[in-house]
Structures are given as structure tokens and as C-alpha cells.
């Protein structure tokens, strides 16, 4: 409202500034869109077209068959199944565990709470790359369920470290801190235990924070490359991201198939991003402003 009135009296140097901004934004938009457009173009071209000398923005005769060829290059249903299972287990387990811990840190008074929270906070800052080797060797030595290499190259070995992330604890704590304390008092009057209060009052109201956390966790797990690279080998547990890199290990790289597979692998992410962008953004911001 206020801004609209100002617009009519725009100053000449502001007008020039606006033009600089427009040009800058146009260049940025081209820069960001370019790689996406080229991925799609190349995914629809024939190899001779890709190796042709001249640049083509749009494929003349879209080769949709590249997509089926790419998906037949390797056991893609299995890779998708693996990534989906890993993401689903991580999502469910970490949401519940993190929410419960977040509730404790937000609502229950007990000795060492501050100190413990501090330790968790510091733990969150430790890069997973630092603990990569010990986590690997620990899982390898866990031979309780048999096998010479323990949990290495098993679903458990792949999933368990993902669940340990403590980012969600902060997000949930932050969110629960905004709830009125009277909720807990009322619950206690009614004879609810702490867990029951969490289970019947806090959990049902956690929709918004769970949505953000779920979107972030899903993207993180689905997109993960390093941990599957380290802990799995062979086809059985291959995730979609690992399977993508296999295209590169062959003698000649079929760029059209590689680009087709790249797009297909990221489609679940783009669908979530498109329809849950609000939650994605909110999660990123919650993690930034006050974590």
C-alpha cells in the first residue's frame, strides 16, 4: 500500500538502479535455469546429436526412449526400492525419537538438562565426515547377528546412522517452547504421565514442525551419497544416487541416458519441493535463525 504510492514518484537514479537489478536478475535466472534446461535437452537427444559440433537448445526429435533405456541400464526398481525404504525408515524413526527428545528439552525440568542440551548442541556441529571411519569400523565389528563384516553392507548399517541426526531435536524443542505450559499442568491434573502428555497433546499438534522436518529429512536421506558409498558394496543395497554414478564408470558415457536417469532420480525431490516448498523453506529458516 505504502510502497505503491511511492512508485509513482520514483527518482531517476532509482529508475537506473532498477534497470541494473533487472539485468542482474535476468542473468542470474539464465544461470540457474541453464543447467536444468540442458539436462532435459541432452536427455532427449541421440548420441550423434550430443557429439555434433553445433549447440542446440532444444532437441529436434525428442528421444523419449532414452528414459526407458536408462531405466533398463541396471536394476533401477531395486535402487528406487532401496532409497525409498531407507528414507521411509529414517523419516518415521527420527521424527518420533527427535520429537520425544525435543519435548523433554522443552518442557521437563531435571538435573543436567542445560549441560546435556549443550552437549547435544556441540554434537550437532561435528561433521559426519569426522566420524565416518569410527562409525564404519564400529558397525563392521558388530557381528552379533553373524557375518564377518557385521552390519556393513546391511540395511541396518545403512539406516542407523541417519536416525542419529540431532537437528530435529532442536526444531521440535523450538516448536514445543511456543506451547503454553498450562497444557502440561492440565494434563497432570488429569493424571497424565509425561509420556502421555507428549503422546496425546504434543504429538497430535506437531503437524507443522513434522512437515518441515520430514521434507528436510527426506531430501537429506534421498540425496545422500557418501554414507552409502562407504557402507554398501555391490548391487543389493545400491541407492539411486550411487546407481547414478555407475553411468560414469563405464567406458563410454551415454550422456543422454545419464541425464535421463539424473532427472528421474531427482523427480521425487522436485515433487516434494514443488508441493511442499513452504515446509522446506520453513524448515531451513527454523534451522538457521535460532539453532
Amino acid at each position: 500500500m505504502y510502497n505503491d504510492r511511492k512508485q509513482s514518484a520514483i527518482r531517476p537514479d532509482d529508475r537506473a538502479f532498477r534497470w541494473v537489478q533487472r539485468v542482474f536478475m535476468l542473468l542470474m535466472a539464465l544461470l540457474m535455469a541453464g543447467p536444468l534446461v540442458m539436462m532435459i535437452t541432452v536427455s532427449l537427444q541421440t548420441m550423434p546429436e550430443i557429439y555434433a559440433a553445433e549447440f542446440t537448445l532444444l532437441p529436434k526429435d525428442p528421444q523419449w526412449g532414452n528414459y526407458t533405456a536408462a531405466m533398463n541400464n541396471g536394476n533401477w526398481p531395486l535402487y528406487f526400492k532401496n532409497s525409498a525404504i531407507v528414507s521411509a525408515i529414517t523419516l518415521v524413526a527420527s521424527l518420533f525419537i527427535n520429537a520425544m527428545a525435543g519435548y523433554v528439552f522443552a518442557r521437563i525440568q531435571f538435573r543436567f538438562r542445560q549441560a546435556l542440551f549443550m552437549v547435544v548442541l556441540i554434537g550437532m556441529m561435528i561433521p559426519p565426515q569426522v566420524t565416518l571411519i569410527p562409525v564404519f569400523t564400529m558397525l563392521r565389528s558388530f557381528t552379533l547377528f553373524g557375518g564377518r563384516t557385521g552390519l556393513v553392507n546391511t540395511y541396518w548399517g545403512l539406516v542407523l546412522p541417519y536416525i542419529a541426526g540431532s537437528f530435529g531435536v532442536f526444531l521440535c524443542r523450538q516448536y514445543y517452547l511456543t506451547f503454553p505450559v498450562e497444557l502440561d499442568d492440565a494434563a497432570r491434573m488429569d493424571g497424565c504421565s509425561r509420556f502421555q502428555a507428549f503422546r496425546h497433546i504434543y504429538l497430535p499438534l506437531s503437524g507443522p514442525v513434522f512437515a518441515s522436518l520430514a521434507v528436510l529429512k527426506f531430501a537429506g536421506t534421498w540425496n545422500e551419497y557418501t554414507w552409502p558409498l562407504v557402507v554398501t558394496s555391490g548391487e543389493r543395497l545400491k541407492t539411486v544416487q550411487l546407481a547414478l554414478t555407475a553411468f560414469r564408470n563405464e567406458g563410454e558415457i551415454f550422456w543422454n541416458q545419464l541425464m535421463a536417469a539424473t532427472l528421474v532420480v531427482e523427480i521425487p525431490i522436485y515433487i516434494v519441493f514443488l508441493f511442499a516448498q513452504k515446509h522446506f523453506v520453513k524448515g531451513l529458516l527454523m534451522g538457521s535463525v535460532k539453532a
Partner: protein
Amino acid sequence: MQPARYRAQDTRAAWLMLSPFLVFFVLFIAYPMVMSLYYSFTDYNLNTANFVGVRNYVRLTRDPVFGMAFQNTCVYALISVSMLFVLGFLTAAVLNRSFRGVAGLRMLMLYPYATSMTAVSMIFLMLFDVNSGVLNKILRGIGAQPSNWLFDPGLALYCLIFVNVWKNIGYCMLIYLSGMQTIDPALYEAATVDGAGEGARLIHITLPMLRPVALFVLITTMVDAFKTFEQVQIMTRGDPLYTTTTIVHQIYQQGFSDFRMGYASAMAVVLLVVVMAFSAVGLRSNPSHV
């Protein structure tokens, strides 16, 4: 304001409800952290671990490859961070206004951040490819000399930096944007009345008001850059001539290719010290965290 006495019931409930989280935390974060430190003083090779004192650390200082990795990582971090800092701020400044298509533009800026680094690496491998790559096609098209991109020792690291900036620019924009939206519009109105143009308002109001946000962007992008691994492993494997190897790439190489896990752990500890130093600066400057 702590209560004089904690309820026994509450304490029991707290520890019980925390226990699943704590089990994971201890097993996958705290204990491995301690083991990383311990391994760094041994010659651990996946089978045996003998105590060797600070030998791994001494060796680090003399290892030319690790020296390259450390230097590459620093160059990568400094350039990435400064570019993200500036470009993120500028795009946020443009998109902090409502006009037709602004939501679409914000989304366009942010989609690379949602894309996996694996997929991004694949796309840029295609773009940078010497023979069939789009970039060389364009260069040839305008009559310029095609480049070797990822195979040019003087250029490869900068290609990786570009990929990193491209992927993360939207994230920086988003954080800046949220900061800009908390600035009191009255400040801008007062400045306009005093005759400040749009550029002047950006420099004299927006920039100073965003100092805490800018610091956060600085720290997160810095920490993120020091953890660089995936694009190196996928796009260059540290080649050509170790010009693109990074600290984490060396950890992976030494640890999981050569099984020198003691030595790799010493590298991991160096990484930890660097990252924690930056994080500590970030935490101290953000008093709202607890």
C-alpha cells in the same frame, strides 16, 4: 530460573523419553568422536591399532598431498564463501519485493539447493565435457578457443567452486531474504524522506541491519565448504595432479582406499578443529540459540 527441587517422577520420565535419542547420540556421534581422536594416535588399519603417539600429525605436516588438499580446501572455501555472500545478498535484494513472477524466481534460485550433489555433479560433468559438453559448443560457436575445464590443472578447482556456488546460492538468498523481511519498513521511509536513493538504502540500512544474518551465512557456507567431498569424488577424483583434492577427499582416500585409518583419522581431527573453530564463532555471535 530453576526450581529448587526436581520432581523425581519428572527426572525419571525425562531420562526414559530421552533414552532412544541418547542411545543413537552416544553410538553414532559421541563414541565415534572419541574413537576418531584415539585412532589418530594409532596406526589403525582396520585390523590392528598400535599407539604411535603424534606420528600421524607429524606426517601430516610433511605430506605434500595433504598440503595440497588443505590449500585447495581453503581456496575453495574462501572463493565460494565470498561469492555466495555477495550473490546471495544481491539476489535477495532484488527478490525482496513483490512483483509478478517473484515466487517463481525464488523457486528457480532454490531448486539447485534441493537437488542432490550427485545429480548436480552429473549435470556439470555433461556441461564441462571437453568433446560433447555444452560449454565448449558455445565457445566454439562464438569462435573462441574451447577449454579443457576439469582437465585443466589451473581451472579444475574453479570449476568445482562454480558448481558449489551455483548449488548453494538459493540457500543464501533465502536466509538473507528472511532477514530483510524483519527490517522495520519505517527505517526505509525515513531514509527516503531524507533523500536516500534505493542503492543508498541498500548499503546504509539493509546491509548493517543484516549483520547477524550475514555472519550466519558466512559461517554455514564456510563450514559446508570445508566438508567438500561429493563433487570431488564424482567429478574429478582429486585430479588433475591433486589440484582438486580436498581434506575430506583425502580422508576417504587414505581411510577407505588405502586403509590407513589412523592417518586418515588425524586428518579428520584437523577438519574437526577447523569446523569447530568456525562454529564457535557462529555460536558466540548468536546469543539467541539456547
